[in-house]
């Protein structure tokens, strides 16, 4: 599955009510490390159907960024059953990102 773009409107449905764990990638167009991370997120989304990968643009969705206390991007937050269970900040290799799910 491809990475799903999430906004305030579909956040609840796509993330909080998801029956699979969700990797939420907070990013922005002006952020170089975010762009470097994007192919990793794409690959995880393509290759794993046991999880969902979504992307949130913090400039368009500043309320979500504020609500989840994102202070630095890229920031990947893992949600399980509607709750945050883990997060990482900065450009990380794929193994680290998938490691957040354990």
């Amino acid at each position, binding site marked *: 599955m491809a990475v799903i773009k999430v906004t305030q409107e579909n956040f609840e449905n796509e993330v909080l009510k998801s029956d699979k764990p969700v990797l939420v990638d907070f990013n922005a167009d*002006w*952020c*170089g*490390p975010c*762009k*470097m991370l994007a192919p990793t997120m794409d690959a995880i989304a393509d290759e794993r159907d046991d999880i969902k990968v979504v992307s949130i643009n913090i400039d368009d969705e500043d309320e979500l*960024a504020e609500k989840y*206390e*994102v*202070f*630095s*991007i890229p*920031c990947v937050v893992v949600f399980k059953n509607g709750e945050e269970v883990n*997060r990482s*900040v*900065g*450009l990380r*290799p794929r193994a680290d990102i998938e490691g957040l799910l354990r």
Partner: protein
Amino acid sequence: MRYDILVIGAGPAGMTAAIYGRRANKTVLVLEAASYGGQIINAHKIENYPVAPHISGFDFATKLYEQAKELGAEFVFEKAVSIEDKGADKIVGTPSGSYEAGAVIIATGSDKRKLGIDREDELVGRGVSYCATCDGAFFRKKTVAVAGGTRTALEDALYLADIAEKVYLIHRLDKFRGAEADLERLKARDNVELLLNSEITKLNADKRLESIEVKAKDGTVQTVEVSGLFVAVGRVPENQNFAAVIDLDDKGYANAKEDCLTRTAGIFVAGDNRVKEVRQLVTAAADGAVAATAAVKYLNEKA
């Protein structure tokens, strides 16, 4: 497989070296610990690189990477942890094994220097940041502190003064190196407060940074409420792993001149990790060209 040239670090210096090595028809392997591009991927806009007046750090890095790949350089994403000099053969160790090459170019650049206080790592992304232009926007109308006396610290404080409600600039000394103009501009801002001769001694946080403890030279201690702390205390070269084959100065920079030669024949250094005055893209790229050309000459003379 044995490579003619092994480059450590896929920053601007390392990737330029790879281009020059390939154009001289040498086989080239680039080892990179993180991702290609090096520091510059954090820059939103580069405006001082000749011929490319407006380019993002990401585009700069990606174009350089594609150019090196297209010429046939190979990239492996692994960290180099050691170099062994066996004369004609150099053995570069990684956590999972080793690579053999005829010549090695160390282009490992530099990394941010940390304050080195408790909970600093844990609070990155929860209030602690090393890049004001990257993370400043998250602190709109909040109170933040900048730590450091570098020119970057002054620039960061000025940048943040436009965004944040209040900015403290905290510096161990009472003098700032260079950038007098920036200092005057800072002093003219009414939402900037300078705490000089002062050190940050503690980070107070529950889930995120709430305040910092600041200790002045005269012994007074105060707690300053901040949501963000921007650390700008300089950068450190990444040469520690290679001290067996190259000389380092007291700050850890590789003691090599413009010729990029080291005390070990066949081992060269290029870029920000070398002792030099100007640490910029254009000088990193220049080093890459010089080091690769020297490596090619070294290999050809041996052959």
